[in-house]
């Protein structure tokens, strides 16, 4: 282990962050695309933390929700228990979620009447070890609430996906920005394609902290279920960083 990695692990352990506590290996869920998993310090999406998913533009609400649903399906594969979906709106369409790989027989949809109730319910879900994964459709959260959610997730090891339309959440381990991309097919509309950008990730290697990783991904039905294929990765920013080191 390099000095840097050791130092990172020590700081992580002091902070009690997922994956660094007492040398225990992180419980992480593969995103289904090795190119993306390799870029994450946990080798996948870490359990016991919050992951923020945002739409690139308001028009991309469908894409962001689609990616979030896809991740929830991945969590379901890796973990036992129920899937919880918390939302204030009533436009979630079950057949569409099933098509994105969400096992609907394990999903419970909770529709509180108020945003404050939703945050409270999200915390209750994150505390519960019987939950495989939580997806909460929120419009921002104040610092305190976000911190509470993060602590609840850390305590139980339940991963929380926050589909966020509001202000950025500092408490999240990762932040994903999703935009829809044109599909490819000889005829008709092809498989779903998204522009995916990892705009925040705790414990990226030093110097990579402010780096933004981008991919063009396609959601595919393949052997062993629904998965992502990273068609291209944009590493231009990271290359710029290397040049700076060299110079």
């Amino acid at each position, binding site marked *: 282990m390099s000095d840097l990695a050791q130092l990172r692990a020590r700081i992580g352990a002091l902070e009690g962050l997922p994956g660094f506590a007492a040398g225990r290996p992180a419980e992480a869920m593969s995103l289904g695309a090795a190119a993306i998993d390799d870029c994450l310090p946990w080798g996948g999406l870490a359990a016991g933390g919050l992951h923020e998913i945002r739409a690139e533009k308001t028009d991309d609400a469908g*894409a962001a929700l689609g990616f979030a649903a896809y991740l929830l399906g991945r969590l379901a594969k890796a973990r036992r228990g129920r899937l919880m979906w918390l939302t204030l709106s009533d436009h979630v369409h079950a057949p569409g979620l099933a098509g994105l790989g969400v096992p609907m027989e394990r999903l*419970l949809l909770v529709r509180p009447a108020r945003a404050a109730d939703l945050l409270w319910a999200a915390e209750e879900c994150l505390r519960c070890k019987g939950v495989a994964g939580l997806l909460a459709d929120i419009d921002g959260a104040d610092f305190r609430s976000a911190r509470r959610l993060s602590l609840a997730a850390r305590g139980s090891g339940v991963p929380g996906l926050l589909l966020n339309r509001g202000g950025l959440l500092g408490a999240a381990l990762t932040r994903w920005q999703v935009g829809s991309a044109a599909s490819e097919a000889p005829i008709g509309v092809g498989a779903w394609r998204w522009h995916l950008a990892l705009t925040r990730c705790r414990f990226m290697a030093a110097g990579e902290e402010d780096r933004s990783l981008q991919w063009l991904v396609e959601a595919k039905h393949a052997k062993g279920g629904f998965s992502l294929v990273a068609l291209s990765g944009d590493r231009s920013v990271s290359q710029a960083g290397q040049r700076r080191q060299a110079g």
Partner: protein
Amino acid sequence: MPYLATDRLAKPDSGARPDDAWAVAEAGSQRRLVAVNRAAERAGLKPGMSVADALAIRPGLKLAPHEPAEEDALLGRLAEWCSAYTPFAAPDLWREGTGSAGLWLDISGCDHLWGGEAALLDDLTGRLDRLGFIARAAVADTPGAAWAWARFGAGGVVAAGDAREALAPLPVSALRFSPEVTLGLARLGLRRIGDLYPLARGPLAARFGSVVGRRLDQALGAEEEPISPLRPPQSLQVQRRFVTPIGRSEDVAAAVRFLLPRLMQLLERQQLGVRRLDLSVFRVDASSVRLAVGTSRPTRDANALFRLMALQLDKLQAGFGIESLVLAASVAAPLAARQQDMEDGEAAECLSEMLDSLGNRLGFNRIQAFAPAGSHLPERAVRRLSAEAAAATALIPEPWPDQRRPPILLSRPESVAVTAPLPDAPPLLFRWRETLHRVRRAEGPERLEGEWWRDQNPARDYYLVEDEDGGRFWLYRLGLPGEFNPARWFVHGLFA
């Protein structure tokens, strides 16, 4: 309760003096008194008198409008309160003959708790009197006999088997006949209940219908007349009565803590678990409230139930004080002792606790699961299952349609302006929510129709279209190609 209509208004706490004369009058062109209180009665006022006459006889008479619905609601509340005496309590809204409604209480098997029937009656009338309600009460073998004895007899207890003799001198209207029947009987010279005893039933039935015989049988016990209680009685219930009424929420919480393990013992004996727990709170001012908590699966965990109930106790208003609490498992389901592997059991336990806590704060109807429904129309393609159905066990996976469906379905399809080259082609351009979308790729049409036996709505041709930026939409054209001119297009969903 002969003076209910006026007692309701002249409650002692409203500052009314007992010797004020009160009357309740019907609204309308010809205003007549409907009910009067004792003071007014002593002054010579009677129901049926016109308001002008009444005011002439007793100047200073206080008048109030007749509100039967309010009275009925009050009776309902009093009946609730009387369920502290017996689970079989119900309001009696039969006003013919006396003009006043009352309460039914089936005290079979309850009187010994109060030291006999007479003591129970004393306690009941005493309490009502302190609340400002004048009540005449009677106990008899049958509800019919008690009704007659309270209103037309001396009141009090009619000993078992004495009803026939006791009722004989009472007027026939004491048998709850309509005025026409009473009048008809009077024309035949039948004024006393005793007059009816020797008569043959056949001719009576021919003249007045079966009602005469039936009421007589009900009064004398030859026919059963059950009192339908407000709520079915609970065998799974425990009660605590307080010598000194309590008011602090800590005391109520302590009492609930005391009662819960006792209820759990009752349930354990029958291998049942609580699905719904009701706490009935009886206050000294003859009002009662009920708090309820539900659970997603049967449980006998007193601590978990207490936590759920505690959320509601904060909202409880003690009023002038609480004199008794009844804790009942109003819905129970079999719960056998189960063995599970530890880890799984813990997760399931915590999941059901979490769902209970969500359900009790947000409402159980706000937790749903989904299953496919056999309809082609997108808005009917999903069955919503209740939390209870979904939470008990994991559902069996059911196949969803193979066709691509959007994860977001607008609750109401939104009309869009469209440029389409041909009636049966997908659009080239469409304007939705102020934005122009240029269609680059399209797939379809997929024709979806409602079930023919359910509606005659036009069919819809759905297209999956992708715009230049990769935004994917579910559009449909209403009707067959060319059915509407210009064609009507809608956005119904957003794809991932």
